[in-house]
């Protein structure tokens, strides 16, 4: 996931040829992080890759040292799943691609892949696949479990898993949405980066109100930080379909933050990725869905939308912010390549899972 704004910032920083001693990586250590089950990956500044590990409920920031700027404007890999599976000596049934992220500097595409219940990072440059080994790297990590449960876990209880559903880096903060395999929670975390030892960070429960009547919490499946005129907000999609915005300025530790429900995008569907992009100088938000078309929304419409108050009764109907249904379906992963291009990992009509690049002028 993906962030065009970060991407442009990155190109600027890359030009300065930042080495390992930047403020971001100063506290990194060289070694082999304990990463067991990658659910999400996300690039931050300077080729730093954030890796969300479900098994240890932690985020590891790895300096990929993959910092040679590239101006490649298109990446593609037909039958990406078959090729990645063959590269791992297996067939597609035996692997799972859990996430994809484009390094905004080198334009290499990173995939987190699971085989035999082990996680591996695969890097695609041109059409060449290689493993990005997580051994002997510069890294720093932070655990996401809150103090109550870490206390309990230290006393011999087994670690809880947290399936990390999305990560985003913005304004030196890493935002993390996760889904517990036990309690039904909407815990959302905003972690200052670089990580510090024994760092406290905001864990907040985020709520949305359905039609002014029932307040409810639920895990966020995908989100994107976006700078509106009134400040930074998170645009979040839920397991239960609403699209909700949250002002980042209200995110204080332990607080109960209420979001504004701006749309219901249709049932039996879940947003899988959200990103911001530009077309002809205008910003748009792009939402990839599990069972519906890719949708395009104008941030200005989100800002102008009042919290929904009228329940929607028509089956398969939608309500709230206007969106355009783009003629792209079954996009499973997406990320910004640069300001003019977006990369899709998409199930094609012929049944293949292809990696392809789409110009933002077409979206």
């Amino acid at each position, binding site marked *: 996931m993906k962030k065009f704004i970060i991407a442009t910032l990155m190109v600027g920083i890359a030009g300065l040829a930042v080495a390992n001693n930047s403020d971001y990586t100063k506290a990194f250590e060289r070694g082999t992080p304990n990463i067991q089950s990658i*659910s999400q990956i996300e690039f931050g500044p300077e080729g730093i890759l954030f890796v969300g590990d*479900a098994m240890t409920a932690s985020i590891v920031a790895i300096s990929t040292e993959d910092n040679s700027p590239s101006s490649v404007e298109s990446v593609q890999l037909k039958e990406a799943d*078959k090729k990645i599976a*063959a*590269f*791992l*000596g*297996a*067939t597609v049934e035996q692997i*799972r691609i*859990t996430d994809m992220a484009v390094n905004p500097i080198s334009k290499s595409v990173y995939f987190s892949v*699971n*085989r*035999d*219940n082990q996680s*591996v990072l695969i890097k695609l440059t041109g059409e060449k*696949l*290689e*493993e990005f080994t997580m051994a002997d790297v510069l890294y720093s990590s932070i655990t996401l479990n809150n103090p*109550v*449960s870490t206390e*309990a876990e230290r*006393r*011999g*209880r*087994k*670690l809880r*898993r947290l*399936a990390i559903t999305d990560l985003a880096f913005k304004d030196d903060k890493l935002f993390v949405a996760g*889904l*517990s*395999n*036990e*309690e*039904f*929670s909407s815990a959302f975390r905003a972690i200052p980066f670089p990580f510090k030892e024994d760092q406290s960070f905001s864990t907040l429960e985020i709520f949305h*109100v*359905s*039609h*002014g*009547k*029932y*307040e*409810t919490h*639920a895990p966020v499946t995908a989100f994107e930080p976006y700078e509106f005129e009134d400040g930074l907000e998170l645009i979040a999609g839920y*397991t*239960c*379909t*609403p699209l909700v915005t949250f002002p980042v300025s209200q995110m204080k530790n332990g607080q109960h933050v209420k979001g504004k429900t701006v749309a219901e995008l*249709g*049932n039996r569907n*879940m947003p899988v990725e959200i990103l911001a992009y530009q077309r002809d100088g205008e910003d748009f938000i792009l939402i990839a869905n*599990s069972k519906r078309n890719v949708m395009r929304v104008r941030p200005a419409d989100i800002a102008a939308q009042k919290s929904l108050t009228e*329940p*929607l*009764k*028509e*089956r398969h*109907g939608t*309500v709230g912010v206007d969106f355009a249904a783009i003629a792209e379906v079954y996009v499973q992963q997406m990320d910004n390549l640069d300001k003019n291009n977006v990369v899709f990992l998409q199930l094609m009509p012929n049944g293949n899972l292809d990696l392809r690049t789409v110009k933002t002028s077409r979206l």
Partner: protein
Amino acid sequence: MVVAGTIKANIGLVTLVVASFFTLQAQAQKPALQLIQDPASPNYGSVRVAGVDLYSIQRIQSMQFDFDDWKAIFPVMLQAANTQSDMPAILGSYSTDESSLIFTPRFRFVPGLTYEAQFNFPLLYSMLAEKPPYPSKDILSLSFTIDDLTSHPPTRVTQIYPTSSELPMNQLKLYLHFSGNMQKGQAYDNIQLFHSTGEAVEAPFLEIPQELWNSNGNRLTVLFDPGRIKRDLAPNLQMGLPLQEGRSYRLVIDKSWKDQFGNSLQREFVKEFKVVAVDRESPNPEKWKKVLPKAGTRDPIQLHFGEALDHALLQRMIWVLTEKNEQVEGSISITNVEKTWQFTPVEPWAEAEFNIAIDSRLEDLAGNSISRLFDTDLSKDTVSEERTIYIPISLITTSSID
């Protein structure tokens, strides 16, 4: 175990094909491709080019080939029959010993799949800039199929929680326990819910691509679609709750679900249950009945909730503290269709004061926690902060029932 040539060994069909483009000249020592199958190793084995002369080995070592060089000389691939063209060579590491070049795959060879290894003799010597020990333009190739030599007991569903045969209409979670580690990504194809009439329930579950497995990979959490359970959301208004009060259902776990070894489940698993009224009340520890042990014994502390609570959360959200706030060592068991929690200490109980500590995030079957309801009616309900609740208890030498 070393297999070479056209031996049909008991471990499976292994054939060596020498693609000879030119007439072979008789030589004493010629390299040969071999599969070393070792089911005990994490990789199931390795492939080697055996019979390489020492001088060549030393030259290869001095070249410090990278993976790209190696895979040009000695690629190991899934056989074309398994894939289409332009498939990459398999990721792995290359090494040498005194007479062999060795490929070890990064992940184990998969039983049942056919692989092909090649050794490009002329390319090696061209990269070494050396005259080959004998003139040959051979490309050796070895095709092999891995048989699974180890036997794995078939995996089965051991339990589904809640175990009760009555579930509230707004039931939120199911926990599926397996006797072994399952393959990921197949869950939602293999879990089906039927009305007692045999008709399938439409879209009852939240299909989360990540699939919510525990660390051991043998317990899956399945959520009923919260959008259908939450009042006033579009899916709730349009489709209603997945479960209807008064009706009976059959939850069927399909036999075709594969475990980590690719084997199907031992048998289909069926859970039948009846649906009762919605539960919109938070669990209330003040109403729980406590049965306290006598000091000096190792009898359990029992908490009777009067309703079933979440099986997974009960394992870690209630614990016992000493006066000094230290956690008492012991074991937890959940009985009476998850309506009872009991804690048996390792050491006999001291005659002392204790605290039963309860995390207020403990949930009932409908996802209502002690601190708040699954969905809160803003006109009526209040939400309390998450906290730890302490129930002080005093253990004495005669049994007491609160």
